[in-house]
């Protein structure tokens, strides 16, 4: 082929690159591995992740749920995972119809009117929601209230730091764990939006209806973030409560934990704001013979057309993960999702009751909860959980000292349908056994 285009060596292909810029040596990366060697290498690395094999009560924005076998089967189909963004609708109807179904499911679950084709994850979806609230209201003060996932707040901070948005934090109530009265004092007619997470970072369910009323009274929007999307199977949808923008992390819908990604951000709002939505939208369309199909639509909002005036810079989103969520939701269906949510809530209640009965342990927040709750231990939580892992082979939760220096003894426990009663009992026994030894001092 080289000779057919009149060249003698591969080096000549790169003549437009100045010679002094061409690499005169081989890259200092490893030599090629065979399939056997490669898999052995990765298996060795995987074996150094003991956290992956344990029974676990970790949540805090990423959740272990039952994943029906069909999910991975469908997302592994070549036709889905090796296709590009559906720019040519005649040969992309599979992807397009899936996204249309995804958008519909997201609307149904969030109680909203329009949803996009996905964002990177829950945290960036929340950041985009804040930017959108500023565009819609043309106001710049945003109040983040109560216990929002600390990493979500960091991402919002990064995104809005150059957008002229003033981000204020209204603290949570120390007794209930829910939002406190501090919010009322901060609200005024310069407020673009109230941002709330429900169930919040501590697992407590917020009163969204009341928040929506407070926001609307001053002409602000209510943005609701949901990190545990399974809760939508049991709780009143944010849309029904009056929310204006709902974002969620869709990982709970059939997506493996995979050390934090890829996950999928859900983004939904009211129809009147459809032209302010970030990211792609799929709509229904017909061909000349009246056959129904689907196309990417309202694209003039997007970066490839409106450039610096676009509603977002997002291009590649999380298409395949949105497919996984769609397969999950359709397989579980109406009754399956309700059953998973119900089991989560009841098992969590069981775990909370048992743990609160252990001598020295308490549950500091009184707000109603879905599948997560904070536990206060009589000893340092990080150390307690470390010993639980090494001695009992259980990951007992997340020590809140990771995010809150003033909560050394608190940890967040998450219980899902995956956790059997027996596992919960082992956790309870482990906590009670280890905390009895008073010699637990933090080694430095």
């Amino acid at each position: 082929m080289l000779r057919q285009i009149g060249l003698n060596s591969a080096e000549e292909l790169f003549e437009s690159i100045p010679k002094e810029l061409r690499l005169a040596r081989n890259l200092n990366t490893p030599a090629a591995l065979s399939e056997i060697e490669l898999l052995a290498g990765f298996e060795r690395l995987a074996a150094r992740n003991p956290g992956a094999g344990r029974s676990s009560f970790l949540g805090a924005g990423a959740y272990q749920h039952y994943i029906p076998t069909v999910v991975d089967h469908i997302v592994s189909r070549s036709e889905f995972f090796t296709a590009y963004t559906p720019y040519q609708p005649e040969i992309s109807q599979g992807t397009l119809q899936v996204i249309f179904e995804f958008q519909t499911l997201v609307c149904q679950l969030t109680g909203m009117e329009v949803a996009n084709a996905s964002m990177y994850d829950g945290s960036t979806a929340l950041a985009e929601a804040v930017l959108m609230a500023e565009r819609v209201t043309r106001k710049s003060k945003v109040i983040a209230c109560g216990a929002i996932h600390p990493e979500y707040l960091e991402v919002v901070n990064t995104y809005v730091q150059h957008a002229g948005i003033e981000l204020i934090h209204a603290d949570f109530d120390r007794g209930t764990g829910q939002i406190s009265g501090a919010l009322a004092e901060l609200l005024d007619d310069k407020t673009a939006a109230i941002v709330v997470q429900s169930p919040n970072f501590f697992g407590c369910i917020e009163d969204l209806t009341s928040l929506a009323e407070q926001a609307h009274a001053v002409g602000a929007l209510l943005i609701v973030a949901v990190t545990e999307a399974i809760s939508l199977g049991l709780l009143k949808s944010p849309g029904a409560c009056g929310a204006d923008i709902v974002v969620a992390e869709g990982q709970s819908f059939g997506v493996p934990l995979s050390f934090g990604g890829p996950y999928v951000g859900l983004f939904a709002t009211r129809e009147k704001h459809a032209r302010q939505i970030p990211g792609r939208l799929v709509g229904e369309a017909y061909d000349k013979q009246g056959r129904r199909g689907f196309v990417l639509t309202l694209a003039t909002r997007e970066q490839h057309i409106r450039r610096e005036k676009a509603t977002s810079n997002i291009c590649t989103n999380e298409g395949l993960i949105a497919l996984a969520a769609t397969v999950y939701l359709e397989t579980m269906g109406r009754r399956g999702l309700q059953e998973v949510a119900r089991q989560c809530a009841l098992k969590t209640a069981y775990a909370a009751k048992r743990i609160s009965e252990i001598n020295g342990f308490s549950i500091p927040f009184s707000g109603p909860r879905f599948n997560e709750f904070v536990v206060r231990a009589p000893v340092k939580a990080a150390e307690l959980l470390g010993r639980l892992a090494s001695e009992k082979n259980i990951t007992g939760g997340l020590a809140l000292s990771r995010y809150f220096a003033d909560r050394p003894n608190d940890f967040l426990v998450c219980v899902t349908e995956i956790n059997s009663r027996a596992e919960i009992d082992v956790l309870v026994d482990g906590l009670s056994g280890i905390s009895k030894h008073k010699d637990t001092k933090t080694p430095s």
Partner: protein
Amino acid sequence: MKSNITKVTSHISHNEALIFERSQTGRIGYRLPPLDVDEFPIDDLIPKEFQCDNDLEGLPEVSEVDVIRHFTRMSTWNYSIDLGMYPLGSCTMKYNSRLNEKVARIPGFANLHPLASENDAQGALQVIYELQEHLAEITGLPGISLQPAAGAHGEMTGVMIIRAFIDARDGQAASAQRRTMLIPDSAHGTNPASAHLSGFSVKTIRSTPEGLTDLAHLRELCVGGHVAGLMLTNPNTLGLFEKNIQEICRIVHDAGGLVYMDGANMNALVGVARPGDMGVDVIHLNLHKTFSTPHGGGGPGCGPCCCTKELEPFLPVPRIVRSRSVSEGAPSEAAAKSDTYKLDFNYPQSIGRVKAFFGNYGMMLRALAYIQTHGNDGLREATEAAVLNARYIAQGLAGDYEKPFDADPMHEVVFTDKRQTRKGVHTLDIAKRLIDYGFHPMTIYFPLIVSGAMLIEPTESVGHQELDQFIEAMSSIAREAIEDPELVLNAPHSTRIGRLDEAAAARKPVLRWKPKQAATTAQT
């Protein structure tokens, strides 16, 4: 009475309705164990007014086989790399190895929670660290963050780093005067959108008739001390290497700005030339292009941001770092055994976090597997094949289509519809007709500066025979455009649906299914 039986056509799968139209009350597709703790009313846990009050109305009720058939049928309406050549310019649609998929599904990675303790996740952190090291070597830029989830996200990260660096260098007051980002008129739309997100105003640089950055215009725009940086794609979106790249970097640096390179076209450079050696300060890569992680119908991606030592303090946190207790001189195996990997949050100048957790980790596993299976020589060979294939197409199509730039392209080549428009056949029509020949169309109407652009990127994953078939298909369409333009104008003729009325779809958008639609649709 009119029958409303949905007719079975030559393909039953062509009648597949929306899942909501298939739903039947009482069907289930899940299998869960029964509840093993005491059952009691949810009302005792959660106040009634916080509970769902519509019984999740509208969510589908279908069986497992319904689900399998539904998605399998829809999948057959998609074109995919596994079916054939997918020559979308600037998208680098290369083969996605199944081995990489297998790696990403190893339970020790797939079941690992992102908030697992460092002790519980040493293997996972090592993967991130090793990939960082490889990407640093490939780009010649030592500071890496794998946190960004896609190309545009990496761009935003890179541009915010430039802003933070200038703020630190010049002080807030002086830095406030530097709020201009220069972007060529041929750039991807994500560039100006990302610059805007970072608080910059955009000035557009013209391209020369040869398709390269206009140096005189660049110099002119650099006067006055307002320029924070330049965002440049190299090779640029016309597939041409910016051969003046060193001079371009010098001009921008002399004006006090930094150079950001959009790494969308790195598939032309891996193993051959490194942005860090060219004078570039910061770049993003698309692991879902150059490093073969699958596009998945629009994502997920992974958009690592790579920068110079000078910019490293500004990268997102946490950084993944290695600590090695054995001295550096020790035998490498002993050293490796003592390695531990940690999350380092202590970067006070960091722009902050751009995503929860660590980024799209599953994509990192696949990219590392790609680098390891190719080896250093294989990476370069892939680049050579990608460029050779594009050059072969450039030569093969020159007889039938207008090639607006003389220079030899790198990994992608742009043609136009100039000759075909005389018969009323445009780029869109050529693209649609290509579908009938069994190929996915090229990128069309991009870059915006080329009227009727057709941007073709074959990648290395196409053989000689398929390249010839593609060239023959394009030649045949060129003939049809003269002899039977209607045939081209009404294409495609072989697909499940014809061209859709996109104007009607945008005028009265229907963005979700609603129950009342069910009665009027579902018939073909």
